[in-house]
């Protein structure tokens, strides 16, 4: 997997091996069309979400314009039936999208990797118990559980929504990480670390995880995308935070206020299109990263 010239350089004492691996990965990543293209789209949306609300003097839910107006110079994505600025709602919705994706995906990644590492490394009873936990959470259909929670407890903020989503999206990660940990655990460098008295967490952190770093990056991207879709579904049913704008909530409002029948396409097409674009770009980035990390796929 390592460039032989870099290996030679490292052996000659020029570069520490881990650093050179990252350098090499970065080099190829920036030249991969899928990675660059996908990243560009995602960053463009992020920029939109961050910047746009700063340049307007009204809020996304303010009644500022003529009701149900199609896109125009004043209102780039038209207005809702109440005269709210759809473009501004869209930009604010993007913010929530990124926030929930980052927090929710991040939490799921953290839980999944921890459970997976510990289960794979420790084995025995710990492994059995964690496996049971993983399997139960895996089989439980997350959406309905969250519906029950939300219906009773209510979700008031995006971070809280992200917490719930993260708490249910991790099982597949745990399984995969466990499998990889199991195979890495029996390798010589881990035995060496164990013999030298390193603690378990240190071994996981310094010996095992770096070997899986590429996989972990790709997993986080998938979790991010998954969290975005999940949140959009919850928001659409009406079980998301209602004080902030979100893309799912926009679609919910649009359907509720007969946007379909009134033909107000600028209200319900952009939110879903935005989600599709962001999540799709993330998936494409992932395919590109796979090529970067697995040189065999690179030679096209």
């Amino acid at each position, binding site marked *: 997997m390592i460039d032989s010239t870099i290996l030679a350089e490292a052996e000659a004492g020029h570069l520490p091996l881990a650093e050179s691996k990252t350098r090499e990965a970065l080099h190829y990543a920036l030249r991969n069309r899928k990675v660059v293209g996908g990243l560009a789209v995602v960053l463009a949306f992020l920029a939109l979400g961050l910047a746009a609300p700063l340049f307007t003097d009204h809020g996304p839910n303010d009644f500022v314009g003529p009701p149900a107006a199609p896109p125009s110079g004043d209102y780039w994505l038209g207005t809702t039936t109440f005269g709210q600025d759809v473009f501004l709602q869209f930009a604010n919705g993007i913010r929530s999208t990124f926030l929930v994706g980052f927090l929710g995906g991040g939490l799921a990644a953290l839980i999944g990797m921890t459970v997976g590492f510990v289960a794979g490394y420790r084995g025995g009873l710990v492994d059995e118990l964690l496996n*049971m936990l993983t399997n*139960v959470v895996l089989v439980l259909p997350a959406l*309905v559980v969250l519906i029950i929670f939300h219906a009773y407890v209510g979700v008031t903020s995006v971070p809280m929504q992200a917490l719930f989503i993260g708490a249910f999206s991790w099982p597949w990660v745990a399984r995969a990480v466990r499998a990889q940990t199991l195979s890495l655990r029996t390798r010589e460098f881990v035995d060496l670390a164990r013999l030298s008295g390193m603690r378990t967490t240190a071994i996981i952190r310094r010996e095992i995880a770096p070997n899986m770093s590429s996989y972990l990056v790709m997993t986080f991207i998938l979790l991010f995308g998954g969290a975005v879709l999940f949140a*959009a579904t919850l928001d659409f049913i009406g079980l998301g935070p209602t004080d902030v704008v979100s893309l799912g909530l926009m679609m919910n409002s649009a*359907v509720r206020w007969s946007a*379909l029948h009134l033909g107000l396409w600028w209200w319900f097409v952009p939110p879903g299109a935005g989600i599709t674009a962001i999540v*799709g770009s993330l998936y494409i980035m992932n395919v590109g990263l796979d090529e970067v990390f697995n040189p065999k796929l690179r030679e096209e």
Partner: protein
Amino acid sequence: MRRYFGRKLFIYALTFIVAVTINWMVPRFMPGDPVLRMLTRTSVSNPDAIAPMRAYYEKVFGLDVPLWKQYLNYWAELFQGNMGVSVWLFPTPVTDVITGAVPYTLALLLPSILLSWWAGNKVGALAARRKWLDNSVLPASYVLTATPYMWLGILLAWSLGLVAGLFPIAGGYSFDRQPTWSAAFLADLLAHWILPFLSLFLVAFGGWAIGMRNLIIYELEADYASYLEALGAPRRLVRRYAFRNALLPQLTGLALQLGVIVAGALVTEIVFGYPGLGSLILNAITNQDYFLLQGVFLFIVLGVLIANFAIDVVYVLVDPRTRIGMQGGSA
């Protein structure tokens, strides 16, 4: 074999217990007592008919009954098929409301899951070997799988339903009709079914196509494929083996995706006002019908568990390695 299924059933039983416990416990975390509030509200309008609800409530939520007894009572009632009475469709028992909606949801889920899996696998396999197909199918599949279920539903409802006027977009059948076994009614059912089905089918299809395409490419590089090629086997044979072998992880993937597809079906029903469990959930939430909500939740969990088990059985039948691994291989 018994150990394998034993373990699986144990997990499923455990999951069901967890689900039931969640169902019973969560209302307790709410500030105040919404169930009581709901009951009081309803009792104002229907004082007499409230009696069965009150009785149920007392047994599983009641203040004078100790907590553990409440829990056991909940289970006892469950096994007797009593999940309380619906508030929204008072005085229909929850189980009856649910059984009225289940056929619609199943009518959406079963065909869309099976057809999208089968078609996605076939097309994915084809894309793996024809470059031109690969270049069109792959990007399209990525877009489809990134599409939120409800958005595609909205788009289809708007474009094919309203703008083109080809299909109706609300309800399970036309409001002016009565359910009968006539061809006209069946045609009407079908017309209402098509768009939600299509929506579910397309999104799921994208995922399977991508997965299969990647798996086939991987299988074609496997040692057994290289060996067959070295022995001059025709492409046909190698592809057939690769496809068969790639189906196995796709089957596992199906079990993993069940939760996602069910979620997709629920929101799609909401978009189209299709009278299945999804619409039921929405109504339960809007009307604060907690008994109904809990009932639907348990039903869905049960359904998913049964489906998982079915897939486990199929997997064992299809993969000789699991069968033999369990019986203990000979040396």
